[in-house]
């Protein structure tokens, strides 16, 4: 509808433009649909058809003659017409007339007797058809409404997305923090290992030096013990042992 308003206003606006521009734009602003287009909703079927009297003559004929001839006019016309056709033998009475009379009697009797039942049956069939169509329509409307509900719910859910993203962001930050600390720990342990190694190396070196020095001193001392000194020390030890044994004997 608004586009129609724009379309109506466009030609007036176009005249203000210089001619070459107007010509180039003209073919898009010609109003395309000027009548009210509406294919839906389709108008419902009329309830009853046109009135027909005696199953043969539409009611409009009787209404047409009523102002001039009253109620009996068409019947008079019919009688006169029939007598004219019979007397001038435009309608000839022959064997076919008898056949027609029998057939018409049977038909009229059948219609009068079984008409309402057949009509009710046909109406029931129609009702079922209409009911199924209506059910389909209602179901379609229902599905569309549930779709609308779901859509609204989705829109409501989108509002909650911010919380979801905050939680996810927190998760990621926590992962990063944990990872950082883990690496920090690894760095610390590595550095400590290296430092321990150095310390161990140093202590080992010192120990080795000490041992080596002790050994060297011992070796030198042993070397320096001359045989003379060895004899003297052994004699001294024997004397000491004797003294000790004596004191031990005395104690026992």
């Amino acid at each position, binding site marked *: 509808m608004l586009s129609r308003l724009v379309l109506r206003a466009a030609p007036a606006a176009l005249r203000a433009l210089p001619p070459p521009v107007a010509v180039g734009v003209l073919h898009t602003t010609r109003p395309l649909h000027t009548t009210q287009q509406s294919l839906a909703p389709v108008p419902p*079927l009329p*309830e009853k*058809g*046109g009135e*027909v009297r005696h199953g*043969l003559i*539409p009611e409009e004929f009787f209404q047409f003659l009523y102002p001039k001839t009253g109620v009996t006019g068409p019947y008079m016309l019919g009688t006169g017409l029939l007598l004219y056709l019979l007397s001038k*033998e435009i309608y*000839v009475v022959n064997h076919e007339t008898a056949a027609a009379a029998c057939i018409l009697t049977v038909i009229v009797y059948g219609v009068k007797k079984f*008409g309402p039942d057949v009509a009710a049956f046909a109406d029931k069939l129609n009702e079922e058809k209409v009911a199924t169509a209506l059910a389909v329509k209602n179901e379609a409307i229902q599905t569309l409404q549930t779709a609308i509900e779901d859509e609204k719910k989705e829109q409501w859910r989108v509002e909650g997305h911010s919380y979801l993203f905050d939680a996810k962001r927190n998760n990621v930050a926590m992962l990063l923090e944990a990872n950082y600390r883990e690496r920090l720990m690894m760095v610390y342990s590595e550095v400590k290992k290296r430092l321990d190694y150095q310390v161990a190396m140093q202590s080992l070196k010192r120990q080795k030096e000490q041992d080596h020095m002790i050994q060297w001193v011992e070796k030198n001392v042993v070397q320096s013990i001359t045989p003379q000194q060895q004899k003297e020390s052994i004699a001294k030890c024997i004397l000491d042992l004797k003294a000790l044994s004596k004191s031990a004997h005395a104690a026992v």
Partner: protein
Amino acid sequence: LPAAVLLKDTKLMDVKLGQLGSWLAMRDYSPSGILGAMRRGYDRYYNKYINVRKGGLGGISMVLAGYVVLSYAWSYSHVKHDRWRKYH
């Protein structure tokens, strides 16, 4: 002053007797015109008597009666021989 309706656009029931000849002459007798007229007639009859919720017997009985009358008219030259009297 009411706007004068062209003779071409008047319906048959509104045409005066004197104008009937010129009205008939103005109708469209090309094949597409005739087909269009038949389609219009059929649609009018169908939508009035058959395409309704509770259709009655009149809808088809009128068609059958028309068929009976038409077939009698086409076979009149054959029926003429069964006449009871020669002079009417």
